[in-house]
């Protein structure tokens, strides 16, 4: 069994740049010059920040944040579900 990790995921379409996440989770989230979140560490949430991350998710006015759990080997999972892949990083488009 691969090691399970939890990531903070931003729905970029839902996000309207309120910036609440950067206030509630400053260790992981900063804002760009337009007020949109920049997530550090590829969104991986260390155990000590789990509670703050949950607060950020529930506190987002646009409901744009979620937590995604998955195997640590799946790179780029902050971009969402993927077809299971040996390479693990290929994104799906036609």
């Amino acid at each position, binding site marked *: 069994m691969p090691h399970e990790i939890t990531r903070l995921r931003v729905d*970029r379409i839902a996000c309207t740049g309120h910036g609440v996440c950067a206030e509630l989770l400053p260790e992981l989230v900063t804002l760009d010059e337009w007020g949109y979140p920049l997530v550090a560490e590829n969104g991986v949430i260390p155990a000590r920040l789990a509670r703050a991350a949950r607060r950020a998710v529930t506190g987002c006015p646009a409901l744009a944040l979620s937590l995604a759990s998955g195997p640590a080997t799946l790179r780029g999972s902050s971009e*969402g579900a993927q*077809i299971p892949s040996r390479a693990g990083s290929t994104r799906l*488009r036609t």
Partner: protein
Amino acid sequence: MTPGRVRPGHATPPGEPGLPRLLPPAADLAADDTGLPPGLDLAAHLRRRGLPRFRGSALIEQAAAAGLTGRGGAAFSVARKLTAVAAGGRGIVVVANAAEGEPASSKDAALLWYAPHLVLDGLQAAAEAVGARTAYLGLHARREPRGLDLAAHLTAALASRAAAGTDRVAVELVETPPRFLAGEESALVAFINGGPARPADKARRVFERGIGGRPTLVQNVETLAHLALIARYGGEWFRTVGTADEPGSMLCTIRDPDGRVRIVEAALGTPLHRLLPLGDDVQAVLAGGYHGGWLHVADARRLTLSNADLRPAGAIVGAGVLAALPAAHCGLAETARVARSLALESAGQCGPCFNGLPAIASALAAVAQPRPAGRELADLHRWAGLVTGRGACHHPDGTVRFVASALEVFAAETALHARGGCSAIRRDQFLPLPAAPVTESDWR
């Protein structure tokens, strides 16, 4: 070429098509729409191509053996996609994607015009392989007055197949809005679902929940045409051209330095200098279209048509757009005008994209002017880092790749502009821009 009678055990038995596989042997097609030959009708198509040998899960195995990847630009494994969708359960939907929104590409339109039945065969084969009962063909609505009437052409092709009883799954034609992003997989699905043709968040992928919430297979029409040939001649045959890592052939839309546009089918791994003239009158090559990258002509002369060669050089194979920029044009001005249209083509959904792309486009427009620069170059490099990887789709990433490659390849020109000069002697636009201005209603 005689109709393909398949002889198992041979990689390329006589009668199986060499290159070109998809388009007529008459070498290069002029893509100047009305100059295209009319293509094969159903009877001639079946005489030439014969009937499929591999179907269902056997076809998926052959696609895996072939190493066929998507020809819409992302080069994703077709067998993996087919397998994932087939596992999705009931009510599976298949979509043939010809929403060719890239202004510099017309290979899908040429393929549909010349070989509609090959594409439609591939669509039926894919539908059978994944167990789909519903099929769509998404077609880019062209606005040019001289454009081919592909919708009428395909309607006639579908009618002749219905009359002959060749198809198990009915195909619905859908004309998509003439937007750059309308062919992005989730945008096409959103449009067929009745909404605007805008990309969706990727938390839920269309292979799991697409059209009507059903598992949905979206494949580029050229991919389906290759699949139709693999169904006849097998995966081993497919690999007889191309490289070991990037097998097969692909259609390319080639813009020569004189502005002429050709559709050419080329094996992956073909040297670029054999595909387009790269003489002293050419300064750079755009590879992979407007989400691709510029190459110095000196680099282009030693590179091949493959991601193995092009990615390390800052470009991609993409959907096969290759353009040879004449030395007489300003590469910065060309890129700035395209970047502006790419900013306007943002779906306006993701903050980093709808803020960053206009900022990038206007800074690049300033750099494209022959006058001392301010802080635009520093801004460009910062913004490039800020928008990459932060959109629901690849539009910001692709746009940044295109702009960043221009800053690198045209660095000497940038320095000349900063001193108030410009080496260009022509001011007209070489690269094509979207035909129509963008309005909000264009998304529907």
